[in-house]
């Protein structure tokens, strides 16, 4: 009887235990094509700031004005990669659905690369490069598409280029790795939307060193209109839970738009931009990232006041033609996400706060040190199922009426996202 009971126990329990420790390895083929992506459903409620001239210019002669607006859209990211031996082809698309009308498809990346060895890569096409060590800002990111510090992890579009990369590991206790990247950026087609002046071709070079436990990059950029930039960055862990990083960039002949005599004016300036940041993890698994950013191209408080007055004067003209023209100018010349000189960025992240499973909480602020305005935004995430998540994302912009964040078109907003991965 005892043997029988033991046999029954063995039959029932041993296979279950063995099964628990087995899994199938996804097979890999010599050549293959792979797809993935995500669909983001985003619904936002926005509280407008009707007293702001930036609101007035954006919504000039709009009849259905309301203090609260709603925005609903679907962002679709679809990526495909084909790989065979040393050849790699990458396509990353982005499309946005707002209403039933033809949807325009854009390529975030579209390039082919020849991976001759782990040391050598050559490629051509539209590719996204990210230079610099900053989380929210990258003054030395000469080939980057400008990040939105309000959402630094958002997938962004790349740039058309021809690139070459060389990478070498070294068996030494001092210099452990060295790499070199060279990127040639053809100019944008401005002549009949087909051609571009050859002399507008831009070149970017970067060398990377892993020296002891520190990452160091040196960068150089030569752009059109004799723009030259020289930069470096670094990142290192001072302790197992404490990292510091920084970027510095010096530019010559950099373009900066200001308002002079009530008109946009392009200035050529020389000078340095830099960031210094830390990343700290405490024993409660809370991560803090803090960065200070000095933006040489940014507007001073006085220059921002001129810009504000310019928009206000434009609105007062009440002329449709002038307002339309200025609206177009502003959207091209004052488009930067960091319009002014000095910023402080802080984000605090806590996974599974209060033991709430599959949830995450973070809060960030971008504080404009030039005019004491800021944005404050908490974010709640919840992933009840694999490959599916919810995000609740309110944001407040605060400051004096003529400050950067205090004059934003929207004083409050709440975004609700649902994200599906496939």
């Amino acid at each position, binding site marked *: 009887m005892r043997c029988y009971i033991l046999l029954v126990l063995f039959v029932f329990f041993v296979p279950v235990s063995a099964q628990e420790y087995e899994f199938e390895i996804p097979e890999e083929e010599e050549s293959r094509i792979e797809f993935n992506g995500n669909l983001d459903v985003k619904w936002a409620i926005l509280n407008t700031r009707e007293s702001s001239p930036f609101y007035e210019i954006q919504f000039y002669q709009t009849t259905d004005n309301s203090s609260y607006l709603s925005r609903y859209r679907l962002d679709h990211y679809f990526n495909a990669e084909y790989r065979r031996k040393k050849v790699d082809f990458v396509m990353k698309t982005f499309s946005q659905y707002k209403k039933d009308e033809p949807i325009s498809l854009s390529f975030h990346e579209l390039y082919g690369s020849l991976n001759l060895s782990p040391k050598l890569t050559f490629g051509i096409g539209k590719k996204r490069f990210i230079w610099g060590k900053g989380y929210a800002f990258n003054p030395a990111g000469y080939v980057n598409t400008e990040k939105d510090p309000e959402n630094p992890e958002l997938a962004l579009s790349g740039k058309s280029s021809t690139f070459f990369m060389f990478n070498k*590991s070294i068996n030494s206790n001092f210099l452990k790795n060295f790499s070199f990247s060279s990127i040639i950026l053809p100019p944008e087609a401005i002549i009949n939307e087909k051609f571009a002046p050859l002399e507008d071709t831009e070149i970017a070079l970067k060398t990377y060193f892993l020296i002891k436990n520190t990452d160091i990059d040196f960068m150089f950029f030569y752009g059109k209109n004799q723009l030259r930039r020289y930069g470096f960055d670094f990142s290192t862990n001072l302790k*197992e839970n404490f990292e510091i990083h920084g970027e510095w960039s010096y530019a010559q002949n950099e373009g900066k738009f200001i308002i002079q005599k009530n008109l946009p004016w392009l200035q050529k300036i020389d000078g340095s931009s830099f960031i210094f940041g830390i990343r700290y993890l405490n024993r409660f698994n809370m991560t803090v990232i803090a960065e200070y950013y000095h933006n040489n191209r940014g507007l001073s408080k006085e220059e921002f006041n001129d810009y504000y007055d310019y928009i206000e004067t434009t609105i007062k003209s009440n002329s449709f033609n002038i307002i339309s023209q200025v609206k177009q100018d502003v959207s091209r010349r004052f488009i930067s996400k960091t319009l002014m000189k000095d910023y402080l960025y802080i984000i605090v992240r806590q996974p599974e706060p209060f033991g709430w499973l599959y949830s995450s909480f973070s809060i960030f602020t971008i504080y404009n040190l030039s005019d004491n305005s800021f944005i404050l935004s908490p974010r709640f995430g919840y992933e009840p199922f*694999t490959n599916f998540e919810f995000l609740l994302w309110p944001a407040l912009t605060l400051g004096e009426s003529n400050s950067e964040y205090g004059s934003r078109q929207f004083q409050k907003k709440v975004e609700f996202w649902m994200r599906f991965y496939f």
Partner: protein
Amino acid sequence: MKNYKILLFIILLFSVFSIVQLFSASDKKADEILKKADENLMPSSFETYRKLINEEPDGSKKEYIFYSIKKDRDKVAMLYISPASEKGRSALRLGDNMWLYIPNVGRPIRITSLQSSVGGIFSNSDIMRLDYSEEYNASILEQNDEEYVLDLKAKTSYVAYDKLKMWIKKKSIIVTKVECYAASGTLIKTLEFKEVKDFGNGIVRPAVIETTSPLYKGYRSIMIFSGIELREFPDEVFTLDFMPRLCELR
């Protein structure tokens, strides 16, 4: 009387010297045991697939599959294969340095050994573990006929846990249990090495590592190894530039 004092001093000096010698011999033996245990856990250069299961107090599970490679004592890289939301991420460890590459972020960012990139109880240093002898100095705490118990102290402040207590089978020199302690002496987690399996090529090691922590009551994380294969890699695959290309090795 004077000669007597000199003799006493020489005897005392000799005794101190002998005790020091005895301890350093014991430490040397402990370091050798630790190195052998490392060799039995991980060959010098190999590739493997691992599944990581995070079990939550409500019984629900989150699962990840990684492709991992290791070379020498201090180079580890891994690629996230599933789920779809994590696919394409990769992580790299070179000695005390760790980076995580997220396709959307587009560049490797430094991470810390104490952080957990996958949630659950396993920290980055557990998932991308180097040889224990690379990070710790060992001494024998106690032993019996069956096993050694080693006391491991971190060589540098970059190491995730200041102190480990490790149980090793005497006959096979296979690790069976590790307790991880903070500098304060607080027990952070316990790793249990289970299901000893013959992976071929002379690799016989536990296929399952299970971890629990008094700091996360009700949680359990399990790491399962499958198909450990010996393979040589050029050093350049353990670099930041190669992180987006790790999938080429599969």
